[in-house]
């Protein structure tokens, strides 16, 4: 069983997605067209909030398993 004392690589990857998209994707979401009566940029930020919840929850599950594995290894090896 592989464990990580920092974080699982997938945790790093999925948590960096919102940061990268928000920092470097500005020209793609800088859009004032109306979608269902609301600015596309406002929709984008609402969507990013929801996506960040989903991605962070995925990271939470991965790390929960990682922590469990570390505890099991610790108990096996004293």
């Amino acid at each position, binding site marked *: 069983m592989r464990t990580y*004392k*920092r*974080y699982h690589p997938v*945790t*790093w990857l999925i*948590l*960096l997605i*919102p*940061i990268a998209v*928000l*920092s*470097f994707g*500005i*020209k793609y979401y*800088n*859009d*004032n067209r*109306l979608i*269902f*009566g*609301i*600015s596309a*940029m*406002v929709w984008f*930020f*609402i969507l*990013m*909030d*929801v996506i*960040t*919840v989903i*991605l*962070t*929850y995925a*990271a*939470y599950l991965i*790390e*929960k398993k990682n*922590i469990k594995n*570390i*505890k099991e290894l610790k108990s096996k090896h004293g």
Partner: protein
Amino acid sequence: MANNNIPIIIVFSFLFLVAFAGFLSKKFEAAKIDSLAEWSLAGKRFGAFIVWFLLGGDIYTAYTLLAVPGLAYNSGAFAFFAVSYVIMEYPILFLTIPRLWNVSKKYNFITAGDYVEKVFDSKFLGAVVALVGIFAELPYIGLQIFGMRYMLSLTGLKPDIAIAVSLMIVILFTIFSGIRAAAVTSFIKDFFIWGMVLFLIIFIPIHYFGGFGEMFSWLNKNQPSKSLIPSGGMVTFGTLAFGSAGALFLYPHSINGAYTSKSADAIRKNAVFMPLYNIMLIFITVLGFAALYVVPGIKNSNMAVPMMLYKTFGPYITAFFGGIIILGSMVPASIMALSSANLFTKNIYQNLINRDISDRSQEIMSKIAVGFIIALALYLSIMINPLLIIKLQLIGGMIILQLFPLIFLPLFTNRVSKIPAAISVSGGLFTVFYLLHIVDWNIIYKKIYIGLWGIFTEIFLLLVFTFLFKPVENISLDDYLDA
């Protein structure tokens, strides 16, 4: 503007509600012993639900409620940088603060300065964290006072009297109940603020424009430059958002809020669900666009939303909203003062003046410091021009970001030791102040947030000096893992 007593009664009703809840909160998750950790961290016993409100109280302050729509009023869509940075901040929270919590639990740290002192075996670096933290918090508390002042100026109440009363309540309930006061009042604050924002975001667009679509159509047609981030401002937008996200959980009040958690897992759960809180910030920003139509031509953009409320609802309802904003100022002011007081007691007084101070004396010292810090922030907010306080707060954000090699980096590696860390932080702080001087105390240099120029310098210096020194071994990587 209103000239009868009803707005005064409304505002004071809120103050007494907060005072009542604040004093009663001493019984909440009651302390078993009197100590600094019990008073300021509630013995690290708060669950994820309470911490969610406490962090919300920390992050979404009254000043946010006025300044972010004010920025939207002034600079249009650029104001969404605040929304962007708060979304980015939660992955950073997930990655860093649970590890800091684990090590703090193991070694009974109360402040981030305690951690830095232990990890680098340096009282000096612990004191640097304390000094930078207190410097950054003072104007932040000052801004909360401005938030109160802006709203009170519309209620017919003499702002100075109401501010003095509300700050006195903050000092007293913080001294009496510690962090529990902020936790309990956070519930009340959120109940009213969420209610207010949801009501306004539905009512204002329908009342003035006929609906959301009409409001955004009006913005696109009449204020096209404000409906988009200017093409020349995208790098500034991105770097400002990223830098601000990096800084937020280096602030003492954010760390203090997270330290109250009963486990690292509770903090992770908050990192997962806090972005939902951020949807409110999107709504608040949009209110700034509505204010462009409702109250055009306001010079002090921070007054845009208060003026819009006054024009729409008149003095009584504005006083009600004013009471909510004041409530939203008192919670963060309490946590900010408390966390600064702890830094002073633990990392300046205990480290540099009296090593043998007892736990009980530490608590008393911190309680005295709370009063002193709030009084100092009040003095600053009276004596200093509001624009200077805002500038000081922005500078505070830049310098707190420079603590990254001291607080965040050692959470992941023991390779960086005391001297490279001290050199890099000195270099980062020097870069920030040098560039601020060059650009006449603006926050942007060559389109990039100055705080990030400081980080670039720090990374360069770390790469040059780190491998010349031995790794630190005071804390092992195992100490950062969940027990």
